[in-house]
């Protein structure tokens, strides 16, 4: 089926625009602010960008994980960053903010409301991420062995090398390019210009992953305003539209997956219509350098696509926000006129188990 035929077959969705985006400075450790204090300036900025207040918002959805700060209800107090009085329609997902965005987008499809605030926050610094993320695994057969996320990613990278689909030089090239691009991203945590040959002299953290192929540990927050109907035009002269949106999950057992491919990303890309037109920019949530190669293949991106001009998750990886930030960064490229059509991606779980794809278009 041709791309045009596929597009014609796809269900018609209500146009929803990304009206505003804001993110905090991404840092290794923000121990001067609690979650509310981290979020308040970000929420204030996302409103100020388009001159609105919370009174213009119909629905709020947030994404975060209790486990990062070791408390049962971190999202409860975080809501104070918005100040929901009088009470507001509000929901929370224990997933990356990109999925909170999906929930808000779905609600806007009904046509009953026109504006939503989405925010997410991730403080990775209070605990030990290697121990915390091991608790995402099957609690009976995997978690008791405490496999850490770096070791699992290293298994994936090794499988990629063994399959002849990537090399340590490729991983280093991705890391070098990403952090060099991050030099022009004022919110980035890690940005520098180091050539591949130098990076390849790094020690292994877990073979075949050297230090440069790992994401930084980041504290950060992000917020976005979605608009539909008249508000989309009212709040932007050149709206950035969400033209396709989907997410898919794979099985949990790593032994039952081909770790060198990402069928869930490919499926989400198909439903979201990535191939319906040319892609100029891709913001991919690839915390480990080699994962960019797997995602690029699954999304069907050719070498002409600019990947992660923000530096991606290798430049800043605030867990629970890094996916939402990819969508915000991709939208910014369209808003600035650098791109006409972009794809943004978010991931969750070990070795890219769950993936979300969002296609954005200007006009």
């Amino acid at each position: 089926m041709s791309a045009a035929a596929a597009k014609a077959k796809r269900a018609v969705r209500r146009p929803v625009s990304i009206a505003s985006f804001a993110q905090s400075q991404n840092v290794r450790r923000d121990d001067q602010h609690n979650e509310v204090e981290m979020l308040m300036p970000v929420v204030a900025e996302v409103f100020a960008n388009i001159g609105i207040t919370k009174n213009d918002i119909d629905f709020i959805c947030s994404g975060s994980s209790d486990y990062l700060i070791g408390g049962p209800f971190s999202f409860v107090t975080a809501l104070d960053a918005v100040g929901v009085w009088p009470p507001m329609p509000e929901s929370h997902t224990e997933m990356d903010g990109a999925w909170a965005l999906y929930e808000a987008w779905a609600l806007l499809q009904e046509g009953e409301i026109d504006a939503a605030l989405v925010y997410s926050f991730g403080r990775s610094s209070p605990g030990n991420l290697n121990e915390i993320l091991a608790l995402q695994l099957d609690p009976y057969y995997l978690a008791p062995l405490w496999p850490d996320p770096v070791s699992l990613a290293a298994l994936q990278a090794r499988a990629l090398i063994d399959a002849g689909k990537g090399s340590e030089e490729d991983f280093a090239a991705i890391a070098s390019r990403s952090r060099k691009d991050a030099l022009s991203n004022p919110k980035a945590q890690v940005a520098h210009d180091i050539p591949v040959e130098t990076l390849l002299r790094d020690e292994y953290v877990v073979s075949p992953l050297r230090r440069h192929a790992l994401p930084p540990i980041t504290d950060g927050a992000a917020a976005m305003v979605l608009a539909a109907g008249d508000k989309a035009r009212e709040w932007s002269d050149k709206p950035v539209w969400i033209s396709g949106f989907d997410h898919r999950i794979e099985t949990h057992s790593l032994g039952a997956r081909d770790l060198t491919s990402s069928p869930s990303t490919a499926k989400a890309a198909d439903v979201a219509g990535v191939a319906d037109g040319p892609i100029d920019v891709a913001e991919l949530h690839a915390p480990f350098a080699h994962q960019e190669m797997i995602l690029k293949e699954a999304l069907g991106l050719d070498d002409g696509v600019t990947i992660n001009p923000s530096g991606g998750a290798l430049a800043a990886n605030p867990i629970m926000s890094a996916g939402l930030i990819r969508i915000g960064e991709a939208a910014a490229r369209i808003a600035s006129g650098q791109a006409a059509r972009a794809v943004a991606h978010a991931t969750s779980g070990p070795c890219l188990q769950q993936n979300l794809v969002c296609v954005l278009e200007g006009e």
Partner: protein
Amino acid sequence: MAEYCAVIGVGQTHHKSKRDDVSIAGLVREAAKMALADADLTWTDIDAVVIGKAPDMFEGNMMPELYLAPALGAVGKPMFRVHTAGSVGGSTSLVAAHLISSGIHKRVLTVAYEKQSDSDAMWALSVPQPFAAPLLAGAGGYFAPHIRAYMRRSGAPEYIGRMVAVKDRINALRNPYAHLHLPDIDMKMVEDSMMLWDPLRYLEACPSSDGAAAMVLAAEDSLSGSYPPAWIHGMAMRSEPTMFAGRDQVNPQAGRDCSADVYAQAGITNPRAEIDVAEVYVPFSWYEPMWLENLGFCDLGDGWKLTEAGATAFEGDIPWNTSGGVLSSNPIGASGMLRFLEVAMQVRGQAGEHQIDGARRALGQAYGGGSQFFSMWVLGSDKP
């Protein structure tokens, strides 16, 4: 523009203190398979899975949707996780319903669970956190002062709480899935039980349960199953802050606004007259009279009079918590969904011994956090 959505399948586990015969995956699968069978569907008929549970710390399993994806037939599909504190079972149902009413999917499986025996929820709720006042001693310790405030405000006599505790446990005797079956329950048994958080005694508090609930929701053109669909006539969520001097924690504004919203959608102007049966989140006995007022079933200060007069009993004019309610089964993450599910069973006429004859329109309510998160739906046997 929104599509009609209906409940076409329901399932739940036998709720118990310890379901050590099953893993977490086994627990959720038990409820999900029952819901699929009720809808006369199989896993492959489902477009997406929406799962909810209360804090991950309750089982020590971070973002468990990742591990549960294959057990719920979600591989290759969208799988979405909801967490809105105690209201989560209700909110999860609503997020799933919106995936239908938005036109995105045709059939969605929604599941909620808690396996409380894997940990100690009371202490998981009481982890000291930087910058935050300690909650101490779990939910009962938090809500008891608000109950005292209600008693003082309304002049309700002390025995009203005990009446609710007895009434809901008598209802639970009709429900084979309920955790607590106390055939000898009476006012004296409740009065003789240990004082936990004054004025709440042991038998005025919900149990700790292992359990799961599941529903299949479908669009108008995708109905199936042998029981009639339960149509959604209204659905809403509202939240308000935990700490705010202007809050009334006894009669929260978010609860009033949420019910006003669902009643407006359903065209209900007199809840007591127009709602045949209600399942309302009553984890501690006194929340029945408090929510009667908050949900507009009576004037302020009169909630306890309805309880006292037997209006909310099985034979009363507004039966509340025919399943036995949260007071009889409390798998926390699933408790809200069990409320939403019970009203689906009522309007579909499949509630067996706890069926209210002629139930055609019903309200499901869940709340969470410090009485600050609300989710509700109104279901009807007629297409809206």
